[in-house]
């Protein structure tokens, strides 16, 4: 039965290899993708329009802001779906343990190291988020690093210890707040006379030039993305490791 799967695989492979011949050489500066007016417009105008040195951040949060907003919504919906699938589904009955699960105190060496590490990781997450304009980084990466710090707490002690700091309702509230921040900045710029997510209009409320208004609005947008990604990553871990019971687990 397995060999039948080879037929579509080989078919697709032959087609793709045949197409691969027609691609431009790797790294060719004259390739259509590199010569496209859109790409060169972004490279040229990012500095003039937004004063953000990192073009990727500028394109992500400003030029393609609408796209990124709904990507964030997708992440949020995935988190809600995981909650909806696993919430109260039970799994093993409460109280039963597996053979290899051992009753153990949280290890003192691990907990103390984590106690040292977590603040540094969280500060690094803020750095990644806020410094994303100048260096690689941004809302998604900072949010993931922030979520990882909570997961680290859950791994070193147990899930309850992490849930005291970030309970699941709080988690979802923060996730929703992230999207509201993002959309709120968009609507604010709409009410100030521009279009949706047209950050330049924010100069009317911020004491800066049009370019710098876009710069700072991008930071706000990234903070919104960071909120959502942080809490959804932690919610994913908390639900998957305990089958939605939020007790015990890894």
């Amino acid at each position, binding site marked *: 039965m397995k060999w039948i799967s080879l037929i579509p695989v080989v078919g697709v492979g032959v087609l793709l290899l045949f197409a691969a011949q027609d691609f431009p050489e790797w790294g060719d500066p004259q390739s259509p993708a590199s010569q496209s007016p859109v790409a060169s417009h972004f490279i040229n105008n990012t500095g003039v329009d937004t004063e953000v040195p990192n073009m990727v951040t500028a394109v992500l949060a400003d030029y393609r802001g609408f796209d990124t907003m709904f990507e964030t919504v997708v992440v949020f919906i995935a988190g809600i779906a995981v909650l909806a699938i696993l919430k109260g589904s039970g799994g093993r009955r409460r109280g039963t343990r597996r053979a290899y699960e051992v009753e153990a105190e949280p290890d003192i060496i691990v907990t103390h190291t984590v106690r040292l590490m977590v603040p540094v990781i969280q500060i690094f997450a803020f750095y990644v988020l806020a410094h994303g304009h100048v260096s*690689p980084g941004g809302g998604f*990466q900072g949010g993931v690093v922030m979520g990882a710090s909570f*997961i680290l707490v859950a791994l070193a002690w147990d899930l309850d210890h992490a849930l005291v700091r970030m309970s699941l309702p709080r988690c979802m509230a923060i996730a929703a707040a992230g999207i509201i921040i993002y959309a709120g900045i968009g609507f604010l710029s709409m009410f100030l006379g521009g279009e949706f997510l047209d950050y330049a209009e924010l100069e009317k409320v911020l004491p800066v030039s049009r370019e710098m208004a876009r710069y700072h609005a991008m930071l706000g947008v990234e903070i919104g993305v960071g909120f959502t990604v942080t809490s959804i990553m932690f919610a994913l*871990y908390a639900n*998957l*490791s305990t089958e939605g019971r939020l007790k015990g687990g*890894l």
Partner: protein
Amino acid sequence: MGLELFNTFILLLLVVTALAALRVRDLITAAAVLGVYSFLMCLLWAEMGAVDVAFTEATVGAGISTVVLVATIFNLKRKSND
């Protein structure tokens, strides 16, 4: 030329790790090898100049997705039949 050699080496290693991740029967090993695969991919992208994508892949692909996979496999059977 040196960088291109590096590139080629990582590309071949990618195929090896991808095959290994699908070949192993122990699912936790498979998750770990997938983490290695993600990290190699991240190295390749950093070398190609896509630093933002590489950073995202390092945090998401090699970090969170491995953790989430292991957390799930903890609740499932660890061995797979193929």
